């Protein structure tokens, strides 16, 4: 079966690889690029542990083929922290104990981050609505909501605001293998 050469910008870095059409994007991230922060939970489009941002929108990377991401801009959980500084959404999960086992956390962080990009002051209902495609089996969601609220507050007070990857210069890191 013919393979396809794809070029995807991941966390601001251009990555290239030769992939089989059936390779799922989450496997491309984890197995090809070795970015294992993105988790595989249910593998059936339910749990949202594999959430990443595709051109700024949160999607389930277990339900996308890597070939579909060719030419697109992707942000994963590894791209949130900048120069050793946690993004406010990460700090929020730390401060408010927004996790217990941590398995859903990468997805929760990405969905929370995406929400704050277009809603600087979400209500509890808006947060719960936004994360309704991300399942957590530990926390009961209460502290996750608080963590997102913490991040929103921190950003409003001038903490490092949402990043815009499209505006960042693209570095090339050659071919992944």
């Amino acid at each position: 079966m013919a393979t396809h050469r794809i070029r995807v910008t991941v966390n601001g870095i251009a990555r290239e690889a030769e992939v089989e059409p059936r390779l799922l994007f989450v496997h491309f991230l984890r197995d090809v690029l070795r970015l294992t922060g993105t988790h595989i939970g249910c593998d059936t489009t339910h749990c949202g542990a594999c959430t990443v941002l595709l051109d700024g929108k949160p999607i389930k990377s277990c339900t996308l083929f890597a070939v579909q991401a060719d030419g697109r801009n992707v942000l994963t959980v590894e791209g949130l922290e900048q120069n050793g500084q946690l993004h406010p959404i990460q700090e929020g999960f730390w401060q408010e104990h927004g996790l217990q086992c941590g398995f859903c956390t990468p997805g929760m962080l990405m969905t929370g981050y995406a929400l704050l990009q277009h809603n600087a002051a979400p209500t509890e209902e808006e947060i719960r609505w936004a994360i309704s495609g991300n399942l957590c089996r530990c926390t009961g969601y209460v502290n996750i909501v608080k963590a997102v609220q913490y991040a929103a507050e921190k950003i409003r007070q001038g903490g490092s605001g949402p990043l815009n990857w499209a505006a960042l210069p693209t570095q090339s890191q050659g071919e992944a293998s």
Partner: protein
Amino acid sequence: MIPPQFAYFAPTTLQEALTLLRHYGSEAKLLSGGQSLIPLMKLRLATPAYLIDINRIPGLDYLHERNGFLHIGALTREADLERSELVRAQYPIVCDTARVIGDPLVRNLATIGGNLAHADPANDHPATLLALEAEVVATGLEGERTIPVAEFFTDFFTTALRPDEILTEIRIPAPQAGSGGAYIKLERKVGDFAIVGVAAQVTIDATGICARAGIGLTNVGPTPLKAHQAETFLQGKRLHQDSITQAAQLAAEAARPEADLRGSIAYKRDMVRVLTTRALTRALERAGGHVA
């Protein structure tokens, strides 16, 4: 779960996609949002040898009113329908529908065209488009034709699309003055299929008489269903508690649910009655009336 191997095409024109589709026929599947197809491929319930990704074809993602219709491009994402000011203001029933499909992450990829062409009787848009008496545009190499949504769903997961046609547009008649609609879905949790869903659209004339009623049902038959008898019953009548109750009963009788993990036949039928009452009541309120 890894899907079986397939060959992948990403055409950049409709012509190219149609040519591929004609060449590979039923061996090929179109990839739109992929939020139903990819899970089915992972479970190996769908095993297309060729996948034709239509996402790189420009000009299939739009939303505008023209010549008395709302035109929706087949590649329009559910999230865009959900957030559109035009849809929210003029077609709230479509907004009701989009916002209960899958979950917010799924809706960033899922498309309205895929929701229809997949023809899962559990999908939500069909009932709403049946209530609205919408039509779809099917495009083939020889040109376009329109198909009323009422004739589109021919059987379980089967549509009136020919194997070499692509669903390219949805057309919803602009509502007349005094119109309102609502879609209500009963689901166990976000992201689940409907136990039952009911769409209702009504038009009330200046004297408060129902000039037109459309009612569509989700997941209570092998195809999405139009509750014809309930619709006809309401025409020419004043909408009040009695007439709505009777119409809801007729809608329940039109349902042909099967018992499964989401409920028994009797339960689902009764939920059709309950949801039809609620949907008609909300539709009437949105049309500017109220239930006496």
